[in-house]
Structures are given as structure tokens and as C-alpha cells.
């Protein structure tokens, strides 16, 4: 078991913002009983159930896979269901809504922008010609699967957008998760939609905005490595641009991966 702090209570500072009464977000302190196996989300639920029912936040799965429960814990974006109180030695623990997003209320942020960007990169299999179902599945080798698999693990939790200073400064930026998902489809051996995705990816506000701070990859709870996806997309885009000068139509799947 991990190091224990054996505290019996814990102090939290939680951002509150109710649009009908508050002109701007402010902090509120709570002190609640705690045990070593409590995650931050458990603490929030304790507050909601027993101290202050008006505190609002999103959650569902409590197992780090639905992507709803991201908040800032002491200034770092985290999944509140996957981070333990015992790992924070200093009190109070500060809990704020994810940065870089508009606040709807308390810890709830507005992710509409991401939903629009996700759709813009066409995150679905695009075929020149569909294979009829009767002909069965597309064969895909373990290596072909492995090429994109990491990038398909994104749970849309938005921690990477919160960590990205470029997104903070230029909200138009496509951002890490959408870029990673676009790249995921470009790498998929079943997909032929590279060219259709290119306008969204290689546009002014697409991948070239990225300056490779790399923090998206550091905070990603699912090891998606969006920073790598972004950089490799840049290389692949540059290569296919070059390629189209020299050899029109030279963009295959291996060119997509961007190197090797």
C-alpha cells in the first residue's frame, strides 16, 4: 500500500461560482473527515451529500474512464476519481475548475469548444469505397493496430487542454486531444481520409500553433501522448507537402506516421 498520512480530517478550498448569486468565482473552505483510501472525488461527494448540497461537479464512473471528473488539484489538472487525498501532504488542498475553459458553475466547465473541434477533424473511418459487411472485417495486423492504438485511448477528459498554454492564449487552437484523435484515424490501416482531415489539421489554427510545450502528455491520465501525435502530424504534413512537390500522390500510411 502507498504511504499513509492517517489524517482524520482534511481541509479543502473549493472554487464556488453560482451564476445567479456570484459575480465571480470565489473559494470556500470545507473541513471533512477522511480516510487513506479516499480519492478527491469522494471528498467532493462527502461535501455534496452531507455538508453543502449546492456544490456542483461532474462525475460518473469513479474508475478513471468516463472522463467527466477533471478538476485542478493544487493547480494541476487531475481526474478527481483517480487521485488520492493521502498524496497531498499540505492543507488545504485547492480544488478549482479546469483552467482554459469557461466556468458554467462551481467545478463545472464548458467543453462545447472541444466538441466542435472534435467533429471538425472527422474522427471516423473514411473510405473511398466501403467494403460490404458480407465480406467481413478488414484484416489488421497487430503492428498496424499498434501504430494507432495509443492515440485511440483518449477519454476526452480535457486535462490536456487545461495544461496547454497555447490553448490558453489562443483558444482557436485545435488542441491536443482533437489532434491526437485525428492522427489516430490517419494512422489506421482501414482509413483513407487523410486528405479530408488535412484542412482542419494543417490550417492556421491547427497543428502548427503547437510550440511543443509537452505538458499535455505529462498530464494525460491515459498515456495517450498527444504531444507526440501533434509533432508527428507536423512531420507527416511537411513530408506529404514535400512529397506532393516531388511525387504527387505519395501519401501512404507509412508517410502518415511521419518518420522511421
Amino acid at each position: 500500500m502507498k504511504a499513509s498520512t492517517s489524517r482524520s480530517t482534511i481541509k479543502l478550498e473549493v472554487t464556488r461560482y453560482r451564476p445567479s448569486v456570484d459575480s465571480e468565482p470565489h473559494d470556500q473552505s470545507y473541513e471533512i473527515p477522511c480516510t487513506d483510501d479516499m480519492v478527491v472525488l469522494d471528498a467532493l461527494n462527502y461535501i455534496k451529500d452531507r455538508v453543502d448540497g449546492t456544490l456542483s461537479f461532474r462525475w460518473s464512473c469513479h474508475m478513471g474512464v468516463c472522463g467527466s471528473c477533471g478538476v485542478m488539484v493544487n493547480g494541476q489538472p487531475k481526474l478527481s476519481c483517480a487521485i488520492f487525498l493521502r498524496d497531498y501532504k499540505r492543507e488545504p488542498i485547492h480544488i478549482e475548475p479546469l483552467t482554459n475553459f469557461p466556468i458554467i458553475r462551481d467545478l463545472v466547465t464548458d467543453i462545447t469548444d472541444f466538441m466542435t473541434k472534435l467533429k471538425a477533424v472527422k474522427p471516423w473511418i473514411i473510405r473511398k469505397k466501403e467494403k460490404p459487411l458480407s465480406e467481413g472485417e478488414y484484416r489488421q495486423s497487430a503492428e498496424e493496430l499498434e501504430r494507432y492504438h495509443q492515440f485511440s485511448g483518449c477519454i476526452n477528459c480535457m486535462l490536456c487542454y487545461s495544461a496547454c498554454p497555447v490553448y490558453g492564449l489562443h483558444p482557436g487552437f485545435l488542441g491536443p486531444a482533437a489532434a491526437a484523435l485525428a492522427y489516430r484515424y490517419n494512422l489506421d490501416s482501414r482509413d483513407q481520409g487523410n486528405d479530408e482531415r488535412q484542412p482542419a489539421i494543417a490550417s492556421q489554427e491547427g497543428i502548427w500553433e503547437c510550440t511543443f510545450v509537452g505538458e499535455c502528455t505529462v498530464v494525460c491520465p491515459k498515456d495517450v501522448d498527444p504531444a507526440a501525435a501533434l509533432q508527428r502530424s507536423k512531420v507527416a504534413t511537411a513530408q506529404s507537402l514535400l512529397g506532393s512537390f516531388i511525387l504527387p500522390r505519395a501519401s501512404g500510411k507509412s508517410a502518415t506516421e511521419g518518420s522511421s
Partner: protein
Amino acid sequence: MDQIQHDIILVGGGAAGLRAAIAALEETPRLSVALVSKVYPMRSHTVSAEGGSAAVVRDYDSLELHARDTVKGSDFLADQDAVEAFVAEAPGEIVQIEHWGCPWSRDPDGRVSVRAFGGMSVKRTVYASDKTGFHMLHALFQTSLKYDQLTRDDEFFVTSLLGEDGACRGVVAWDIRGGRFICLVARTVILCTGGAGRIFPFTTNGAIKTGDGMALAYRAGVPLKDMEFVQYHPTGLPGTGILITEASRGEGGYLLNAKGDRFMSEYAPNKKELAARDVISRAIVDEMQAGRTFDGPYGNYVHLDLRHLGEAAINKKLPFVRELTRNYVGLDPVVDPIPVRPVVHYMMGGVHTDMSGSTPLSGLYAAGEVACVTINGANRLGSNSLTECLVFGARAGAAAARYAAEASQPRTESLLQLAAQEERRVREKFLERKGGKERIVDLREEMHRVMESGAGIYRNETDLKETCRVLRDLREKFDHLASIDKEQVFNTELTAVLELDFMIDVAETVAQSALRRHESRGSHARTDYKERDDSRHPNHFLVTHTPEGPRFDDLPVCITRFQPEKRSY
């Protein structure tokens, strides 16, 4: 109140809802379809499914065998015509979602891989590592984005169905973010709202699985079916209830008691750890009662031992199991056995539908865990339900599209009035109420307590009666709830109250049905009626809401090929 009109309204954006949406649009592309969901679709609880999705995709397998396994798993309560349709359409659905980009794990020859699963006599469970539900959900969701005719109402909470002239014509929804009610009218409505595990204290189900759709249909007079059958999964992490997938046993994991014995060889000599879930969950409880389990802060537990599989296999096939165990209990399955105990997992029962997903209420369809077709009978086989979401989601979507093409325009005026009534009800009863003294959390915990004590793995008349009594009291206490948050925007206290309201209804149908079933079958084990009773059953119970309380009707099981026989593993 705003009113918006569509052809089809889908409530729920999990695997079933998304599959139904796409099927409806493929059937009739010009339809306007709205997907209404209380969370963003990719947050739906399908996301947490780990192990896999069953279908006959190998030559050594056959549809008949899949059907036989499913019927036997159901303890002969599944409707066999439905099972046959299900197994026949399952392989096509697996290919379809493969074409939509689902990253299925692959064999060296590039075909989708299969793994062993409980109650399946051969390897037939297709999987995407141990995040199958996650990958299926995201593949479906991302594919759904390409349909421009599909409108999404994300974070809209449906509070009631709208009907006129004996047909369902829309829903009333609370726009959680906007803090307002909306009247959504349509020619037809499909419920895909998932299960109700949250009526129990210890469950693998996420916060959103509160049985809303079951209660919505029940209140609209639609019968619920087989509600007494609640599946316990044998292997949940103590404390959190986080699921350790059955795939870990499919890949060769052992269950060990405190003496280090593989106790399943006593209870299921042939299939051992791969017996059906009801059998294993009961075996664990029997081991607890015999004093052969470990004691822990969250109750007794047994060990799930994966150590002999080796690090490479665990990393390749069960990475999520490793991640979850490390994160939540601080143990590494490569070197430590995992503590596990049975945990509420799945509702076999649900809204009564036929094979096309249509309910007795004209214009209302249901699919996925909320529905009861039933291919699951008294016990679902692991990995059948994701496939069920696909097969019956697609069927319901297509059937609803055909229905919508024929159905008349809804009468918007009168529906708007009904919606206004519903708004008044919710506002007066909850949002604007002046204080009683009951807290939401206390009522919820009381419900949890009696559901576990009376309607758990082993049941008997005395405890069930007590459970029913307490649930009735809870209804009364519910009218004395303390006042709640008055803020309109993102009021999660309001949604919590609405969910509790739904859950109490669903819990009541579970306990009442269990009280009436005088036999032991599948997941329903009565200590006072230990045997399966084929003389009076196999029958489904239909439970219908009436002002005088629930009404029960028998519905005979459809038997085509497989006569009830003794069930052993």
C-alpha cells in the same frame, strides 16, 4: 417553455442509443433524430465495460451453440426466439463496428481475436484489450458525428414521457446547463437509458445508472419484466466496487479462498472459474459463510490470482486490470493476488419489449440494458450485453424509423400543455419546495441498506417483506425531503433528487417481484424455495404500475429448441 420537434427522440447515448441513432438514420436518412442524454454520450456507462462482446466469428463455433449457452446461462428464462435472432445478427454487428473503426484486438492473421468468457462453451468473446466498452462507445460516438441530421441534446435530463391518444409522443427534459425545461415532441421515442445498479450500495455501475428509463416507462403505464433478476459479478474490488473483468478468468485467472484452494472446483467441477456469474457469486458467499474467506475493512473477500499468467500476458491482455488494481488497492496483479467480492453489476430485467424493441405503448421503443427482450432471462452471460446493445439497438432504431414514417404529426399544442404540467410538478415538488427534514443521502442509504439485506444474492420471504415495507416508508419520507438548491444552472442536487425518485420506484419493482417468485432460478436464489420450479414456470413476471400499487401478470417464456434441463457447470 420551448418546444422542439423531431421525428425520433432517443433518450440515452450509450452503446444502445448510439447504435439505434445510426440505424434509424441508415434506415431513413431524411429523418430528424435527437439524441438526448443526461451526460455527454462518451461518458455513458458503456465506457466502463472491459471484457468483450460475444458473437460467433470462428468456424469451430456455431449459432446453435451460442444460443444454447445463452439459454442455459439464463436458466431457461430467456425467450428463445429472441436468442436465436440475437446470435444470428451478432456477428454482423461485430463486423459493422469493426468497419466503424473499433480497435478490436487481433490474431496474427489479422482477424479479430476471441477470448474465453464465463458460461460460453468456446472462445467467442471479441475484445479490444480490456477496454472493450470504452472503445466501442467511442467508435460509435465518433461515427455518429458524421450524421448531420443527428441533433444532440447533451446534458438534458428527461423527467417524463409525453403521450397522447395512447401513444408516446415525446419527452419533457430539464436542460441541466441552461436550467430550463424543454418540451421535445416526436413521432416516436426510443429509451436507451441503461441499468439501475445504483439502487444497491455496492455496485460496478457509475453514478448515472439510476434506472431512469425503467421508471419513466413504468410511470407511463408500460410493464417492466423480470425485475427480480439482478446480476452480481463475482469480482469487484472491495470498497469501491470497481470491476475486475471476467476476462481475467477467461485468460486463466484463479479464484482462491483463504486456505488457498481453488474452491470453484467444488461448485462447478467442469467450468470452474468460467461457470456462469450467478453460480460463482453464490459460491463466494457460501465460502464466506463457511469461514473460508479473508476479512477486510469492506467485508469478506476472496483472491483472484493472475500471477501465473505472467507480466507480459497481463500487460498485453489485461492492462486496465493492472492499472485499476494498482491505483485503487495499491497492489500489482503481477505479484499480488487481487482481493475481490461479489458486486451488483447488471439488471436482467427492464422495460418489456418484443424483438423489434417495441413496447406495449405505441411509439415507445427500448433497447440496451434498460430493456428486457429477453435474451438474458434469469442470468446474463458476460459479454452478451454489449452485443445486445448493438443488435437490439439497431433493431429498435430501424423499427422506430419505420414507425416514424407512418405515424402522424404529434399535436404540439396539447403536448405543450402536458409538458407545462410536468414542469409545474417538478418545480413545486422539488425545486421550490419549502423544507422538510429528510436528507437525500439518508434516504438513498436506507434504500441501499434494505436492497442489500433483502434483495441481495440470497433472498427469503421475511427479509423481502421487510425490504418492501421500508421502501414504502421511504416513499412517504421522500415527501418530506429537505429543501434543495434553488440555482437553475447545473443544479446537480435537483438531478440527484429526480434520480432517487426513479430509483425508489425501480427498487420497489425489484423487491416486489422477488417476493412473488417462489423458486430459485439464475440470479434469484431463495433460501425458502431452493429449487427451480418448472411446473409453474418458466414464466416472466410483468409488473405494471397502477394507482393501487404494482400489478403482476405472468407471461410464458418462448421455448423453441432448448427444453429446460438441469443446469450445472
